[in-house]
Structures are given as C-alpha cells and as structure tokens.
C-alpha cells in the first residue's frame, strides 16, 4: 500500500526555528483528530501546566479537506487550561483550504516568543512577525489590520486571539476568519501564553488529480447528495437555531442558569425570529455547498439624532442558548449585544454564558457580594452582563481572577456548586435532554457534547435502559473519531456513511477497508482515553450539580441513581 507522507511544520516560537518533517508512519491516522492526538501524545508533557511554554498546540488538516463537499474542518489539540485535561477543538471557514494551499498537513506550535508575535505561514515557509501593535486589540480589528499587512490576498486564513487569550482566561477561544472559532477549551489562552497573537496561512500550491476517472464521479455523487437532501433545509435555511422552539417545547432549553428548561420568551429569540428580523445572508466554509453560517444584522443607536452603527454577527443555536435563554435575554437585540462583546473579547460564548449564569445566581443568593462583582447584574440585563464579561477578561480583583479560571473554579472558592453547571469542569451546552447528555459530556474525551452527542442519544433512545444509552455513547464517539480524523463537518455525518467515506478515500488513492476505519476509531478512542488519564482525568472525580436533577428535562426528572448506574457500566466496559 502506498503511504502518504504527512508534512509537518514544528514551529518553535522561542527559538524561531522550524523543523520540517515528512512522516509516512502517520499516514495510518488519516489526519484531523487522529493525527493531532498522536502528535500531541509525542510532544506534550503531563508534568507541565496547560499554559507552560513547552506545551504544544497541534493543528491538523485532513486528506479530503476542501476537495470533497463539506469536508472543511481543521482539528486543534492542546492541554486545556479550563479542564487541565485533553483539549480538542474544531474550526472551519478557510483554514483547511489555506493549509492545503500552503502544503502543510499539520502544525506544531511550541515555546514562548519573547514578544507579541504573529506567524505568516505559506509557500515561502514560516515568518515570525512583531505583533506588539496588535496586542490588546479585539478579534475584529486584529483581522482588519492583518488583512492589510499580511501576504496572500484572496483565499488566506487568519486565526487570532482577542484580549481574553492574552490575559489567559481559561475559556478564551481562537477566532478563525471572523465567523468560526476554536472554542470551548481555552486554546486562546494557550496562544496567549506563547505570546502568539495570530497566524496568517496562505498558499496556492497546485495539486494534480491522479485518478480523474475515480475522483470526478465520486465528488459529483457526493455533491448531488449534499444539495439534494434535507441537509440544505436543516442547516442552510434556519440553521441549528431551528432547534430553539422544539427544545423549548420539550423542556430541554436551559433557561436562567437551568432554573428552568423552557423559556417564556423562546418565540422572541427563536431561529425563526432571528431569520425574519435580522438575517442578512448565509456563508460557507470553503468547499461546503450547504452554507450554514448565519449572519444577522446587529444595529445599535449610539447617538441622539438617528446615529446608528451596524455589524453582521454570526448566530446559531448555541449562542442563542448561552447568551440568550440561559441568561434570560428576551430579545434578539439583547443577544446580539452580548455576541458582539464576546466576539471582540475572543471568549468562548458557551462557557462565558454559563459562567455568567452562575454569577447572576450567586449574586442573587448572596454567595458573592456586589463589591466583588463590581456591578449590578441580573437576568435579561445585557448592560450588566457586558460589564461582567469585560471584568472576566480584565480581572480587576480576586473574584474575577478566580472566575477567569472557569465556573467550577469559582464555585469551589465561593460556593454555589449545586448550580455550577459543568461536567468535568466544562460548562454545559445548549441541551437538557437527559441522562445520556450528562454522562456523554462527563465521559467524553474532552467533555464536549460533540464527543458523543448525548443530547441526540437521549432523543433517539428514549426510555431505554442505562446500558443501551452508554453503549450508544461509546459507539458514537468511536465513529466520530473517524469522521473528525477526516475533517468531515459533523453536519454531513449522514452523507458520509462508511461506504461513501471509503469511496472518497479510494478515489484519491488512499486505500482503506471498513475494518480499517473501525479499528482506527477504536485506536483513537483508546489513545485519547490514555492521554486524558495522563492529564488527570478520573471518573471518580466527576461531579454533577444538583440543579441537573431538580429541573425537569426532555426525559423528565433525572435521577442520580440512573446516572450512577450508567457511570458504573461505563467503567466496566472501558476498563
């Protein structure tokens, strides 16, 4: 079997040296998740803190990226400053295309630059550039300046952090081409700890098609499948925000720090309302004919005589939940105010929202004092929330310095654990569907709802016994490892069944069998499990807030007994 050679740039920010390697032994991992996890296992040190300069960030592309429909993601792996454990994050937009054009399959970023730096990565190699003038700027301005000064006009990608990454907020993200993010687990803080403000990646390397007879019909078949199924309707039309109303009706929409699971103002912040009142257009990641990224108009009056400013901001279900229902925000306008703030600061929207929910309730119940929070803040109060968000980043006192480490870290010091809505120190996502959702996030390799889609397991296997739920979670996670090693957007998971994946791979000369793929899913599952154990994961340390069991869910009232049974069974099958 012909082995592909994986081309890697190992970039050391401290020494400004780059080691280029070509590794056939990594062909086996395909790319994406598998490749990144493997490179991470070779380069990380479990004895060092997540923000230690020597800890690596890995970025990995996949062999089918851009050249097959909806194969658009780049996978990042790092040690998460939020959980302390295995961190993995996916983002699309133009990054995959740009890495392909630059002729690099994976990047390893390590060391700490002696001053703020941005990288330019292209056909002429890697350049280390002074980013002093960019330090402190928001994600938007940083992008605007880099577009002007960096090379590779046209189809380059620009990834950057905002002030939150610079200030080591444990849930700072990395912004990718304005509208996508490496979110959730604090990759922005890892960039900041390296004095790395941004990277611009570009290149127009040619790549000839070896087997046109196989490739062309395969591409065309998949393309037709994508544009002719209900995927377009589901993800292009209203996008994931189509879920707000049904989740609300099913009592699965986390509201006011999960004090409720349905929101009386759901209609006013639904996908339908966002579309009718604000939708400007949809855009796509490069190579994706669906175009799920919804951009809406945020228009704000700033002066007395009809003076308005406007922006186009991206919205989806997770944002509407985290900065909307979860904070009791009753209008699209209020949600946009928070999205705008979170984007410029470069924070992860979900974690920022869930942390805010905890702050509001903690203040309300008197666990923390107004002198600590420094501002009044309440549900449905965007002004107060914006001040808290700003303080999370600026960290003017001990309270905010603790909060910048995450919701659970703050609850550990100040109390309020019973309503600190995290699993494995990771803030909950926009579903309160049942036990599989809780267990899925708790045992997922990176504590993400996307590891194993517990929220969907709850809906698909309603009223099933605990064992069935756990088995479905584990099975899903293994399968997803294969899809994300190929950098396939999970929205297209129904298109890319095993047969289609094999056909696509084989048409570009990558020979695999169904058994190979299954074995790879297992292998990556084991690899990530091993990594997180090295980094401190312990099933016995998992904690579930009382609130999860008090507020009714889509599956009714949840019980600790069922949860424990599931965890026990999980332990027995993964030992």
């Amino acid at each position, binding site marked *: 079997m012909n082995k592909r050679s994986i081309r890697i740039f190992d970039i050391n920010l401290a020494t400004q040296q780059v080691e280029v390697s070509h590794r056939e032994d990594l062909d086996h991992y395909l790319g994406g998740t598998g490749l990144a996890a493997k490179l991470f296992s070779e380069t990380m040190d479990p004895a060092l803190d997540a923000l230690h300069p020597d800890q690596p960030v890995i970025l990995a592309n996949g062999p089918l990226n*851009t050249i097959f429909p909806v194969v658009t993601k780049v996978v990042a792996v790092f040690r998460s400053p939020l959980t302390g454990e295995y961190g993995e994050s996916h983002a699309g937009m133009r990054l995959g295309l740009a890495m392909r054009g630059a002729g690099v399959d994976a990047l390893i970023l390590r060391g700490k630059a002696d001053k703020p730096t941005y990288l330019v990565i292209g056909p002429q190699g890697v350049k280390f550039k002074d980013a002093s003038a960019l330090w402190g700027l928001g994600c938007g301005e940083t992008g605007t300046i880099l577009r002007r000064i960096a090379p590779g006009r046209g189809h380059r990608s620009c990834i950057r952090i905002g002030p939150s990454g610079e200030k080591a907020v444990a849930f700072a993200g990395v912004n990718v081409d*304005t509208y996508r993010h490496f979110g959730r687990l604090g990759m922005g803080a890892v960039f900041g700890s390296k004095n790395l403000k941004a990277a611009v990646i570009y290149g127009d390397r*040619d790549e*000839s*098609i070896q087997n046109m007879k196989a490739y062309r019909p395969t591409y065309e078949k998949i393309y037709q499948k994508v544009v002719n199924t209900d995927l377009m309707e589901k993800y292009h039309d209203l996008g994931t925000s189509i879920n707000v109303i049904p989740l609300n009706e099913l009592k699965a929409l986390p509201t006011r720090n999960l004090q409720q699971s349905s929101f009386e103002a759901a209609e006013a912040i639904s996908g339908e309302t966002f579309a009718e009142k604000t939708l400007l257009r949809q855009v*796509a990641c490069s190579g994706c004919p669906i*175009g799920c990224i919804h951009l809406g108009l945020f228009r704000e009056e700033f002066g007395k005589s009809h003076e308005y400013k406007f922006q186009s901001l991206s919205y989806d279900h997770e944002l509407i939940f985290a900065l909307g229902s979860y904070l009791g925000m009753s209008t699209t306008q209020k949600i946009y105010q928070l999205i705008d703030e979170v984007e410029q600061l470069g924070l992860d929207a979900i974690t920022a929202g869930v942390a805010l929910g905890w702050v509001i309730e903690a203040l309300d119940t008197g666990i923390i004092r107004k002198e600590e929070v420094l501002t009044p803040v309440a549900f449905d109060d965007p002004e107060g929330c914006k001040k808290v968000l700003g303080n999370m980043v600026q960290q003017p006192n001990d309270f905010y310095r603790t909060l910048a480490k995450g919701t659970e870290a703050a609850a550990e010091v100040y109390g309020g654990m019973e309503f600190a809505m995290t699993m494995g120190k990771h803030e909950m996502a926009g579903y309160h569907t049942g036990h599989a959702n809780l267990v899925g996030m708790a045992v997922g390799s990176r504590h993400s709802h996307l590891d194993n889609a517990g929220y969907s397991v709850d809906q698909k296997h309603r009223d099933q016994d605990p064992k069935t739920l756990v088995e479905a979670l584990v099975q899903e996670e293994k399968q997803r490892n294969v899809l994300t090693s190929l950098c396939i957007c999970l929205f297209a998971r129904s298109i890319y069944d095993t047969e289609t994946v094999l056909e696509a791979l084989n048409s570009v000369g990558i020979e695999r069998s169904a058994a190979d793929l299954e074995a790879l899913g297992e292998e990556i599952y084991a690899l990530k499990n091993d990594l997180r154990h090295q980094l401190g994961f312990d099933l016995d340390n998992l904690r579930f807030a009382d609130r999860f069991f008090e507020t009714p869910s889509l599956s009714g009232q949840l019980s600790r007994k069922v949860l424990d049974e599931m965890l026990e069974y999980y332990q027995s099958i993964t030992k």
Partner: protein
Amino acid sequence: MEKILKVADIDRCIGCYSCMLACSRTLRKSFAPSRASLQIHTAGGFQSKFVAEICRGCDNAPCALVCKYGALIVREGGGVKFKEDKCVGCGECVEACIIDVLHFDEDRKKSMPCIQCGSCVRFCPHEVLAMEVKTDE
C-alpha cells in the same frame, strides 16, 4: 448563438468555492481552486461582500488578438477557445486582458483562460452564475 458565463447575482453567493473546484477539476485536472479560470473571493474578509472575477467573454477578445501562436482563438458568441498544446507560455494574453481576470499558471507555464464551458455553473448551489447568450446592451 453560443452562450457565455455571466454573474447572475453575486449577492446570492455563500463562498463555498464549488465553482472554482469544478473549473480546476475540469480544465486543469487540479484540486487547487487557485487553478480555476474564475475566482470568487471576499472584498475584505467575510464581513464584506463576495466578488466574482470571471472572464466577460469580450467580442474580438483582446487576449486572443495578441496571441501569436494560435493558442487563443476568438470564439463566436464571445470570449475565446483555447488550444492548450499551442500555448508556449509567453504570458502576453495575461497582459492583454483588460479587466485582469486572465491568470498564468506558473507551474505549468500556461495561460488559464475561461473557455465558457459552464462547468462552474453546474456546481453553484445558489444560481449565482449562469450561461447566457451575449446581448448588445
């Protein structure tokens, strides 16, 4: 009458680049969208509008008129026909294109003209592009 490529409505574009992939695949046997005869890009990041750089299918195409080797030939209905084997890679057609949409492939040392084949149109999911007969307005 032969049709030529038109931008029907750029405001419907989502920036998926399926059109460029189709063109590179069909004409250049390449995976790289940079090898396409049309280029879709943002005017200034994703907040801005998309821009389509396509061959406008000139009558008596200036690019063809400067070609001394018979590689680019004036096409009936507008634009050019391309006899790739005759292209010596002088690049004069690229200079001659009045709107700077004709590019040169530095690897293959050949010009990359649009031949009005319509492949890109077939793969645009949003009817941004169209093949139409040239009108005289």
